[in-house]
């Protein structure tokens, strides 16, 4: 993927997220969403190393992964606005957004829950004689979940083509990573017998190159690998944090990281005219996405129990009929 394409994806994620914040604050999107602002280089760099048939599992902070894996941005916007044209027909929203046809096995509201799902998909790839890989994205908070370790062990003993991508943004909500985790993340992963690499998660090309090497090794039968991306979120844990005054990090710290904004890092490698052209086309895409979402229908309330069972079973209502 060229520098321009990398920048375009990152810019799309950034502007998507900025719009989402506005829409949540305006109550046009229900609930809260977890923005990916500051971390764009990770999803973009890793997915640049992937093919369409590769699988990813994502997190509560999933919009970036889903965009980078190629999901349709207007349909994502429609999903977040709760419209029937949304990727998940308004049943998933931000935390469950998915496009299974693109190998996106879902954002996930439960920390570390995507790990075994990715491993199962990787195993299925091997059974099919394919060299596809599965990437499991998770945060620094997930490294203390048992299921992640159970899964890394299983991927290790069965040599599954899984790339475990840890987005170390320094915090799990308000809890600092150094306070939460004993020892080093890459050493933990290495103990499962897999290659474990740390990379600058604010430089999309560094991420792409590191992920590319690990993905290539996994495709060639080298088994699982672990990539720790050092990154930072420029905004709150979720949209609502802005008004909560949690005070777990300083404005100076945020400002220091903003100097290494991954979009600025990559834009500096492009000429200004190219950047301006990409920025304009991203605005156009997002305007189109929002217009599409707003024009799309809301679901019929009579359909609230649809899509629960593949067999067509319809669950009972909460009142006797």
């Amino acid at each position, binding site marked *: 993927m060229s520098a321009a394409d990398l920048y375009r994806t990152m810019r799309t994620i950034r502007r998507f997220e900025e719009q989402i914040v506005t829409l949540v604050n305006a109550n046009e999107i229900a609930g809260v969403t977890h923005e990916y602002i500051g971390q764009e280089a990770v999803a973009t760099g890793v997915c640049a190393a992937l093919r369409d048939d590769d*699988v990813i*599992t994502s997190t509560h902070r999933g919009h970036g992964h889903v965009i980078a894996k190629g999901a349709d941005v207007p349909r994502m916007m429609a999903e977040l606005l709760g419209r029937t044209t*949304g*990727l*998940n*027909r*308004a*049943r*998933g929203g931000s935390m*469950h957004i*998915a*496009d*299974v*046809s693109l190998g996106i*096995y*879902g954002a*996930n509201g*439960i920390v570390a*829950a995507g*790990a*075994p*799902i*990715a*491993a*199962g*998909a*990787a*195993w*299925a*790839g091997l*059974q*099919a004689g394919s060299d596809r890989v*599965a990437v499991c994205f998770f945060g620094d908070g997930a490294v203390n979940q*048992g*299921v992640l370790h*159970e*899964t890394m*062990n*299983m991927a290790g*003993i069965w040599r599954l083509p899984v790339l475990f991508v840890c987005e170390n943004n320094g915090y799990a909500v308000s809890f600092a990573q150094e306070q939460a985790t004993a020892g080093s993340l890459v050493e933990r992963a290495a103990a499962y017998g897999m290659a474990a690499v740390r990379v600058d998660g604010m430089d999309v090309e560094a991420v792409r190159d590191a992920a590319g090497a690990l993905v290539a090794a996994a495709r060639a039968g080298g088994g699982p690998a672990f990539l720790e991306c050092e990154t930072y979120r420029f905004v709150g844990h979720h949209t609502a944090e802005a008004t909560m005054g949690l005070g777990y990090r300083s404005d100076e710290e945020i400002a220091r990281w903003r100097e290494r904004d991954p979009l600025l890092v990559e834009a500096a490698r492009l000429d200004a005219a190219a950047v301006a052209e990409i920025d304009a086309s991203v605005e156009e895409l997002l305007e189109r996405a929002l217009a599409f979402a707003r024009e799309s229908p809301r679901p019929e309330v009579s359909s609230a129990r*649809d*899509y*629960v*069972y*593949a*067999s067509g*079973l319809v*669950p009972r209502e909460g009142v*006797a009929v």
Partner: protein
Amino acid sequence: MARMRYQQALARALRDEMLRDPSVFVLGEDVRASLRGVTRGLAAELGDQRIIDTPISEQAFTGFAMGAALAGHRPVVEFQIPSLLFTAYEPIVNQAAKFRLMTGGQAKVPVTYVVPGSGARMGLAAQHSDHPYAMFAQAGVKTVVPATAADAYGLFVSAIRDDDPVVFFAPAAALGGREEVADDAGPIPLGVGRVHRSGDDVTVVAIGHLVRDALKVAEELAAPDADGGDPISVEVFDPRTIYPFDWAGLAASVRRTGRLVVLDDTNRSCGLAAEVVATAAEELADALVAPPRRITRADAPIPFAVELEVALLPSRAQLADAVRSVAAIGPRGALAQEAVR
């Protein structure tokens, strides 16, 4: 036609489905050696990638099955102990069972979770004696608790073929039971109950291994009792599937008998019997001549000493008393038929 034990019927169903459909595979602890007897010989016959021994990592291998299912497989996950389902509740209930809804119908998750030996087993104490099927029904996960060998065969086949997650409980106390299983036996649909014995006075809903107890009680009560009391004609209805429940089958039976007793091996609080009785009270009130009763497990963990264990489990004596008590209310037999008309 072969008369076989419940456990053999499970093994045969699994092998038949694995031969029929190459996407079916098993994963769990000690399944190659077949500690639980359902997978015996299959690793040698079908290979190590169809019968996969896992590390002791219930959350991970349960979630793994979902990933494989999304990628086109039909996993069967075996749990060595019923209580292990507590450790896997998250990947079953919160991930696999919600995935279709959460994605607006994008994918199916055809995983079967099987516990070959659920419920109390005399002396295994508190952590190995649970029967948590109501927990899955409460969460809307398809849940099957077959009582007999033929039902175990047909329902296991259906569970594996079903495109949704299904939790399959094979009660330990039923595993030794024998029944004819036809050579060409096929699937038995989920959600359809079975009337094991028809009767006119009282409907007994019994689940899993308790069906056998219900049938014994029905037999006893069919004869005049020692004090010359009238025989009671008991209908034994086995829902077989806990979720979705065969409400139509229940209604058909209760509308004829006018009386209901539920025999259930889950705890009293929020157990399956509570749901059956509540639904009957709301939806079949016009047909009931006596208040419904339920005989359940006590609301307590199972203690070790066998007499303490037995004291907390639903018993035949409790069932017989409950049936007599409801039968004593209102007209019976021909009179009842008239009353209903």
